[in-house]
């Protein structure tokens, strides 16, 4: 069943316009629960109360504000909050095109697929140009009163828009001091490389599963059927503290070689 589009827009690259539909590229797989009143298993409802008096404040009377670091409460009126919102728009405006990889991947937050909206010819041209240029675009758009900056690139041959984190959200690598201490010697480097080589593998994402989620799903299913659930725990072992680097690397390599022969 094809997914439902979450938003429609016009991708604007200079004087060219490409009508597109946005689709969420991530799927929430978590098991969701409701809060119930334990006595009668009826879902609860929520309300905001004044914690001093426990009196319910009706929704229409609830105000919003910010508490400053000095503990002052600044009340913000609805019209003031509305004035902060970006201008609504149906445009995804391309600001720049950059060499693929110029945008640090650490800024990537949330991907969306772009699908065609009417004009298949323009959509096909977009894919072709992204393919051939070796570039990714930096785009700006406003979706549901929120302003985004995103990277436009291809994923499995289709255009995706990846919403980016804001500049101050990503901690610079330079803020972490590189560790001091003595330089590893050649022999150690050679052995470390040998060990990495022995543990080399291809990344096969299909082989990994969210085991906790699977156990929750099994629990929920068993309870829904009225049965009892079996619990499986994962087992972990601890290793000894480090000693001589060379010796341990040598032993690790031998251990691996030994394992291979058997």
């Amino acid at each position: 069943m094809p997914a439902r589009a979450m938003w429609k827009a016009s991708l604007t690259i200079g004087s060219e316009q490409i009508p597109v539909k946005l689709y969420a590229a991530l799927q929430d797989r978590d098991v969701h629960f409701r809060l119930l009143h334990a006595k009668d298993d009826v879902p609860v409802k929520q309300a905001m109360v004044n914690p001093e008096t426990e009196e319910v404040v009706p929704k229409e009377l609830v105000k919003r504000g910010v508490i400053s670091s000095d503990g002052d409460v600044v009340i913000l009126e609805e019209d003031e909050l509305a004035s902060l919102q970006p201008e609504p728009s149906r445009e995804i405006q391309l600001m720049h095109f950059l060499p693929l990889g110029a945008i640090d991947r650490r800024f990537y937050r949330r991907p969306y697929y772009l699908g065609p909206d009417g004009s298949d010819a323009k959509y096909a041209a977009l894919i072709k140009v992204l393919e051939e240029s070796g570039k990714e675009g930096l785009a700006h758009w406003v979706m549901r009163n929120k302003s985004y900056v995103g990277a436009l690139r291809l994923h499995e041959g289709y255009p995706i828009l990846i919403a980016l984190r804001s500049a101050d959200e990503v901690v610079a690598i330079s803020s972490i001091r590189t560790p001091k201490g003595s330089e590893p010697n050649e022999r150690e480097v050679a052995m470390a490389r040998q060990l990495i080589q022995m543990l080399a593998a291809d990344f096969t994402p299909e082989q990994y599963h969210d085991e906790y989620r699977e156990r929750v799903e099994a629990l929920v299913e068993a309870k829904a059927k009225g049965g009892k659930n079996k619990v499986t725990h994962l087992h972990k072992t601890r290793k000894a503290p480090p000693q001589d680097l060379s010796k341990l690397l040598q032993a690790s390599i031998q251990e691996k070689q030994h394992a291979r022969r058997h």
Partner: protein
Amino acid sequence: MPDDIDEEESGGTRSFWSGTVAFGLLSLPVNLYMASKRNAVSLRMLDSAGTPLSRRYFCSKDDEPLEPDDLVRGYEVSKDTFVEIRDEELEALEPEKSREINLTQFVPLESIDPLYFDKAYFLVPDEGAQKAYRLLAASMANMGRAGIATFVMRDKEYLIAIISEGGILRAETLRFHDEIRSPEDIGLPSPATADKTLVARLKKQVDQLSTKTFSPEELADDTAQRLQELVEKKLDEGEDVVHPANLPTQETAQVIDLMQVLKRSLEGKTERKAESPKSSRAKSTKATKSAPKKSSSEKNKPELDIDQNASRAELYELAKELHIPGRSQMSRDELMRALKRH
């Protein structure tokens, strides 16, 4: 490890996980630091007098106000039919606590599709592990490989890639395969053959917009900035600014190290008096003071003065130790209240 991280520049991120990275038979003690942070000013709900409001639960049948003890989690089997799922049942499913990141595979860094990366954490070595850390970082970077491992953090097991960049190792949590939709899942059509004239026209526009370098300044959060400015302006002018009497400021609130409290409550339960080797971690956190020593007679009933700056995860940890019901559904504020009531 306060020496290895610049608190000022990193915005005061602090270590919240310490454990070991296992590489063959080598084990490197490390601390994890958040590599991203949330700076946005958060909006609170208030009444018309500016009193911060709290969320409460009520029975939807008879409007009866409910305490956390009255709540239970339910899974909707069919419309309006629920099965109860107790906190203990979910906790029994949690992975065994582990402080190890075991590097079992090294994959080409380029082969991990960027869509898999979720959150990033810096790894900082403990004293004595620096040489092994440098060795691993240098070898991995040189070979262009990332280590794949699983690790347990906050009762959940994560798949992670350990990446070496700029002499620093960082852990990036990876999304699971079934969380990422494929173009087929979406139902995107196979692309039509592109028209040469259209491609040429579009290419011209792309070329005109092309630049060589990326400047992160373009990623400024304008809305958050405007909100910040509005708040500051109102503070300056004293307009709509109130100071509710019941709101503790950060200066006057009693700040006590949460980990100390947690440790004390555990000691109270088990009468175990041994010093945790990890206590130095808790002491190094910002804006915390050691709790005053309790006499042994008080130990069985620890008094809960909670660090006002404690994160939800820290409060949850404490709530779990104290078996506070309904804890997993509680927000940070709700946990704080439940702990104070305890």
